[in-house]
């Protein structure tokens, strides 16, 4: 339990991204599963998933960019900026030297969830766009190429995997910090993933009202929803149990109210009760879908805002290289040997560059 950290200040843009990105990923991977393994009767349902995924993931990209303190440098997430500048200086894209330098520009750190997530989000966006285009004209040539051919299936498989990744990596990202609560548990990733599925299904249920969907599809979607909500409930309880000494302080705070009333009662237990007791009667199913969405939002809000609130109540001041040293030079985990200075020139008063 580390209470001496600073608050990264991830606020509304990130909460919005976690929520909408979850819906997009959930709707998309369900749609691809239906496309790959379901019946042709359910294809219109898959189309709804694609219709949801692309616009939301585009909005997510905008949110993430706006959250950066230097939004114009959003592309630094994917490419080493100094290498790109070098390549441009060498005449990229018209010179061979420029291309050779540019080949070293992509930056992927598989041990950093934010780095992996940036690539996954880009790839997911591409798959979502292709799948949406492929599903828009049923029976046409484009559908045959982008949806029904082996290429279409490949897009669906890769997109499905990247969708799952986008749904879960945000949880892994929070755990891969030193912030209290986030870093004390490894259960945020599965909670976010199952919540992505449940909110994705909820968004599909709401959009179905405007489209012709077979009643059988609706029944099957409801069945999947019950399963996913039950899973989310299980992982949410495991998450609460795993935060140990933080549980009571969290429950006593307003943020506990958000997580318990907002997520657990309204977002999980209430829609489960509706599905199990009332089935698809009248407007109850709409109510359940809205509750799931509210619960999904509260989950992101609660998890993102609780550690800074807990820290705000805490006052910090209460209370060689010879072989004999046994201390290696930086170079192990966390040292990232790829990040070498590479001619970095610090601005300095000495040479008048500052």
């Amino acid at each position: 339990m580390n209470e001496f950290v600073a608050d990264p200040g991830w606020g509304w843009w990130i909460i919005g991204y976690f929520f909408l990105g979850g819906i997009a990923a959930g709707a998309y991977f369900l749609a691809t599963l239906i496309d790959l393994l379901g019946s042709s009767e359910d294809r219109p349902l898959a189309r709804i998933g694609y219709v949801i995924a692309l616009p939301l993931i585009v909005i997510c990209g905008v949110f993430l960019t706006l959250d950066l303190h230097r939004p114009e440098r959003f592309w630094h997430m994917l490419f080493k900026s100094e290498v790109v500048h070098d390549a441009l200086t060498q005449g990229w894209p018209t010179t061979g030297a420029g291309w050779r330098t540019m080949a070293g520009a992509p930056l992927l750190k598989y041990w950093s969830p934010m780095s992996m997530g940036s690539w996954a989000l880009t790839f997911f966006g591409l798959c979502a766009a292709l799948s949406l285009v492929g599903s828009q004209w049923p029976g046409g040539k484009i559908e045959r190429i982008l949806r029904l051919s082996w290429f279409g299936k490949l897009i669906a498989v890769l997109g499905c995997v990247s969708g799952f990744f986008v749904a879960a990596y945000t949880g892994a990202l929070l755990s891969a910090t030193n912030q209290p609560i986030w870093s004390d548990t490894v259960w945020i990733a599965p909670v976010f993933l199952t919540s992505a599925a449940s909110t994705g299904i909820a968004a599909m249920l709401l959009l179905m009202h405007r489209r012709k969907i077979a009643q059988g599809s609706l029944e099957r979607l409801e069945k999947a929803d019950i399963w996913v909500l039950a899973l989310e409930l299980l992982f949410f309880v495991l998450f609460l149990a795993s935060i140990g000494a933080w549980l009571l302080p969290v429950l006593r705070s307003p943020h506990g109210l958000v997580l318990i009333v907002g997520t657990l009662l309204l977002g999980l237990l209430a829609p489960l009760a509706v599905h199990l007791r009332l089935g698809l009667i009248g407007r109850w199913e709409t109510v359940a879908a809205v509750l799931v969405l509210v619960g999904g939002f509260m989950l992101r809000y609660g998890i993102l805002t609780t550690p800074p609130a807990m820290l705000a109540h805490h006052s910090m001041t209460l209370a060689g290289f010879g072989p004999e040293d046994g201390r290696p030079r930086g170079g192990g985990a966390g040292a990232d040997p790829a990040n070498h200075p590479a001619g970095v020139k610090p601005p300095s008063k000495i040479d008048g560059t500052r």
Partner: protein
Amino acid sequence: MAENVGFYTDTTVCIGCKACQVACHQWNDLPSPDGKTRPLPVLSGDSYDNTLALSATNWRHVKFIEQFSADANRGQARWLMMSDVCKHCVNAPCLEVCPTGALLRTEFDTVYINEPACNGCRDCIAACPFGVIHMSPVKNVAQKCTFCYDRLKQGLTPACAQACPTQSIRFGPINQLRKQARDRVEQLHQQGEAGAYLYGEDNKILGGLNAFYLLVDKPEVYGLPSDPKLPSRSVPFSSFWGIFAAMLTALGALFAFRERTAQPAAPGREVRS
């Protein structure tokens, strides 16, 4: 390859003069907290400490810890003072998570933020177990102690260590500092200060801290975590449970949607028309 260098801070000889903090401010041209000139100093009311913590504008911070017993005469009383700074960890959490490669390990084994590459995602702030990194309100990039990288390149001592009048902050090759520090602990033990120990001198904390401390109370008293961790430690477990949840979710969806379950609704079941 340049020598590995470090700071060894002996808190028992710190007098709280804040010369290090001022020298750091001056050398690095750090602005006042909101980037503007304030007409009057802001008084915190917390001991003799008005800057309270490390920040984008205080890359050094002198902590004042007052320990007075509750009895009327304050029979037990002592001051602990400590000049806090980036620890330049051997296995640095900030460097590990940085998605832009803006955080670098220099040839001196220190950790440096290359400002032109930083896009302000703040992952390093979330990852740092010591609360060292903050966003600059002026440049909108993450900032922290540079270990006076520009001075090191010229063979100069970092400004804080240069300014320290009591040699509480010592700068030098890390192996020399470690020997000095161990000798000093030995000396203090012989003098009766049994609680003296080194924090971050060995490789137990994040592979070792290149800015390590001699302390006489628990780390938490100084606002230091006992057991900071590398962010990547949780990634395999998070990934495993994430994949597990994905498989269960996919399994449920498959059972619901697989082709042979595509049958008409069960009789008697009310469905929306």
